């Protein structure tokens, strides 16, 4: 395929605006898959992704399209993860493209996440084709949405395509627009090889498979290649592209998108954003934009049954093969025993990993409340990064603490501006700016602690704006805050896994709420359990879980054993989700209770 007939593009869309459905239609229309082979939303292949309707790992697919000009084109669709946790991955996917489809729901308009990704695409000089989707819906208002795109993004919408991924309307026009408006890749086959890794995954048979976009040079089987950031050298054993099943090709050349595999056993050696070059004729400079993985959120993962410790380790190692962003190291908690401190890109990433561990590896886990990384400056003049509240040095050794802040972008109908401001202020947000996107939609920008976002900022936003708010955020900086450690004591014993770092003015209030929540969550036991919240040695709240007085079923009615058995099974099931902390049985949810208070 001549370079001039190649088009590399992504689809940018807010969740539920129809990205996956549109991808399905494009695949269907170009006949890569017959209708029979076509499964709904083929690109979202992980079970979890399907359930949650989001893309976690990016995928690519090569489409062969015979355009109206009579020429045949190779269209490489590079899917991007659709969640704020994976911003860096999105940026690498976009860097592999020359253009992007901006899909906006004709009934909803532009959302915060869409904006963030469009700006990122513009930074990469991508040609953007607006696609106004869902025009088949009665409430669709394409003209208004077009105007909004022009006003909010400053994008010319004269070449916008009106489409319905659901009915197939506009799909041909989209394909023609891709050919007509997105430039072919530039690049020189004869120059030293430079290929961008924008995704990777672990295959049980072939090892790590890297998704690459070749900027210069070419890759053939048998070549010896090197990762420029990690330094890893390997021999190429497979070269191919996805259609969407992997297909071997003789070579990949400048401008092409495809995959390579070699003797790569560890996904850690294959970093997204890294540049691949050839050892025989190495490129002098890597491609710009590489960044190491920096987890933003940490939590402890502990097996309910301590005998599962090694299984948890094995499972984490297996998941890590496929997920360079997941980091973990052993950790010991007085309350929970042996487990792992794990770092994640964000809350969704954390949820996904936790769910996969439980679902795919059948582990019963206790997850401690997520924490950001605090920069603790000690009186000795050191800076310690603390990702676990239990490890906060004693107050007398702390000079000051800095916490991470983000720039949060919120888009809402103007009726809810007051509500957003209220919630943001409650969450210690600092107002930065407000802009009208059109006559009734407003974009607000706040500087707000990441820890508040992790708690329930978005939930609160959603509930106070009746679901209309959309949120995007990016790490801004670290700033000093008045923070203290809030400890929880059960039965008089501090439980390290329940400690949190909180804003000092809110400490007493949070302590009271947390103690109340724990009282609801911890079931009655054989003895009374006092729950105390403390800041330092000062008790700020106290609640009691009263003792069980008795626990026995009375009558077994007329021999209905089945009903009785079900009750016992329920009781046993509940007990399985408990962790003995000292003499107190604590249910799993209790360790996340801090997320459930406002």
């Amino acid at each position, binding site marked *: 395929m001549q370079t001039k007939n190649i088009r590399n593009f992504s689809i940018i869309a807010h969740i539920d605006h129809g990205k996956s459905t549109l991808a399905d239609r494009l695949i269907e229309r170009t006949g890569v898959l017959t209708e029979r082979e076509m499964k709904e939303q083929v690109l979202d292949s992980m079970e979890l992704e399907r359930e949650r309707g989001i893309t976690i790992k990016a995928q690519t697919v090569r489409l062969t399209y015979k355009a109206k000009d009579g020429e045949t084109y190779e269209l490489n669709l590079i899917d991007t993860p659709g969640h704020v946790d994976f911003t860096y991955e999105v940026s690498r996917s976009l860097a592999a493209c020359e253009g992007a489809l901006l899909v906006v729901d004709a009934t909803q308009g532009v959302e915060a996440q869409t904006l963030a990704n469009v700006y990122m695409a513009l930074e990469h000089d991508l040609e953007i084709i607006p696609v106004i989707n869902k025009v088949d819906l009665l409430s669709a208002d394409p003209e208004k949405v077009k105007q909004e795109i022009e006003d909010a993004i400053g994008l010319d919408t004269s070449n916008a395509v009106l489409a319905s991924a659901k009915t197939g309307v506009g799909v041909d026009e989209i394909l023609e627009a891709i050919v007509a408006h997105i430039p072919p890749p530039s690049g020189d086959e004869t120059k030293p090889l430079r290929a961008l890794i924008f995704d990777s995954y672990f295959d049980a048979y072939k090892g790590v498979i890297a998704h690459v976009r070749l900027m210069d040079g070419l890759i053939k089987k048998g070549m010896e290649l090197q990762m420029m950031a990690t330094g890893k050298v390997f021999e190429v054993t497979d070269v191919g592209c996805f259609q969407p099943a992997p297909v071997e090709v003789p070579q990949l050349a400048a401008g092409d998108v495809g995959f390579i595999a070699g003797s790569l056993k560890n996904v850690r050696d294959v970093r997204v954003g890294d540049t691949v070059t050839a050892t025989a004729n190495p490129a002098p400079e890597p491609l710009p934009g590489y960044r190491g993985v920096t987890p933003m959120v940490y939590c402890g993962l502990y097996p309910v049954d301590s005998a599962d410790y090694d299984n948890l380790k094995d499972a984490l190692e297996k998941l890590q093969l496929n997920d360079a962003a997941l980091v973990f190291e052993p950790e010991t908690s007085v309350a929970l025993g042996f487990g792992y401190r794990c770092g994640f890109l964000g809350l969704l990433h954390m949820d996904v990993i936790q769910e996969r561990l439980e679902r795919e590896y059948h582990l019963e886990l206790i997850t401690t409340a997520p924490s950001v990384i605090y920069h603790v400056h000690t009186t000795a003049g050191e800076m310690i990064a603390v990702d676990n509240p239990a490890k906060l040095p004693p107050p007398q050794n702390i000079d000051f603490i800095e916490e991470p802040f983000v720039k949060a972008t919120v888009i809402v109908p103007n009726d809810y501006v007051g509500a957003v401001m209220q919630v943001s202020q409650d969450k210690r947000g600092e107002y930065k700016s407000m802009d009208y996107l059109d006559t009734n939609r407003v974009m607000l920008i706040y500087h707000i602690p990441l820890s508040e976002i992790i708690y329930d900022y978005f939930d609160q936003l959603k509930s106070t704006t009746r679901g209309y708010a959309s949120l995007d955020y990016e790490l801004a900086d670290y700033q000093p805050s008045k923070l203290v450690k809030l400890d929880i004591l059960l039965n008089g014993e501090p439980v390290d896994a329940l400690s949190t770092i909180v804003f000092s003015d809110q400490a007493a209030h949070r302590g009271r709420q947390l103690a109340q929540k724990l009282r609801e969550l911890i079931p009655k036991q054989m003895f009374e359990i006092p729950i105390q919240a403390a800041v330092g040695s000062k008790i700020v709240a106290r609640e009691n879980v009263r003792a069980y007085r*008795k*626990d026995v079923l*009375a009558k077994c009615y007329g021999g209905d054993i089945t009903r009785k058995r079900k009750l016992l099974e329920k009781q046993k099931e509940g007990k399985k989700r408990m962790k003995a902390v000292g003499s107190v049985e604590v249910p799993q949810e209790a360790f996340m209770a801090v997320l459930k208070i406002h």
Partner: protein
Amino acid sequence: MEYGVYIHIPFCRQKCSYCDFPSVAGHEADMETYTDALCKELSAKGAELSARGKASTIYIGGGTPTALPVPLLARIIQTAQAVIPFADDYEFTVEANPGTVSLETMTMLSTLGVNRVSIGAQVFDDAILKRIGRIHTSQDIRDAVRWARAALIVDVSVDLMYGLPGQTMEDLKWSVGSSMDLAVTHISVYGLTVEDGTPFAREKAAGTLDLPTDEAEEEMYDYLAETLPKFGFRRYEISNYARHDFVCRHNLGYWQDRPYFGFGAAAHSYHDGQRSANVKDIGVYIKAVKCGDSPAHTEESVTREKHIEEFCFLALRTAEGVDREMFSKTFGCEVESLYRKAIDELKTKNFLEETPTHFRLTPLGMKFGNQAFAAFLL
């Protein structure tokens, strides 16, 4: 093989406020067709039961069996007598509501071979009886017991409840004392549980259910467990107390893994490794039996694992506990091989005690029976 027979009468004069048992009030019109269907179901099963040997116990429960007109109840008993072969020392119990019996009822029961009545007394305080939706007074209870005795039914049991709205310890003591005055042979005690869908559940949700505190309820439980034995009532099962040998052999059968056959709407059966139940709806039941269809559906096949679990957690309800020899005879393995760890853990909690031949719940273990039972789920 010994087996039991259970017959369900799903009618009541009035539903009590705590009751979620399968019974209905105000269906007098269905009583005769129901009796027809029940007798037909019994007759149809007669041959199968005869082939299995003799029934050692039969129990007519409800609902309220005595809510039926005397001739209908008599027909059911006669049919049972005619089609089911009884062992010589059979136990035949009929449940009775004091508000629906007379000397005539008791005489009929006795004449037709019923040798045990279980009277739903609940409490001996008229205000509380009214509060919980009972249709009778405390005097009705006394009359019912006296009429049973007059009809020469020796074995008379009363049900008592504790933890009721408005009930105090003094009320409970009065009820126990009143039962002693009547010289009953057996007492069943039940703590109130507020079941979903009952009037009490609605009252609880509305905040108008004046239940005793957990502590007060516990004191009532402790009082019963301590006091009844002092009056010569042996606690042979968690909720059941008997004088001398007047245990309810039918109910013991449930705990001791014996087969039973249920008749009538919502009746449960257990035999040949299957647990089954008849349809609950009276109309559907009548129609099915009329058409010659089976009203039963299988609830579960009792696998070996489930059988082992049930064998243990049911036997643990009894004072005797689990008989090791019986266990190994039934399952071909030692109880230790499966439950050593569970037994030791429960022993540490002082929930369980062992003898060379048995292991059984301690009084504390009985109080927290659910936790002990759950430990026997494999």
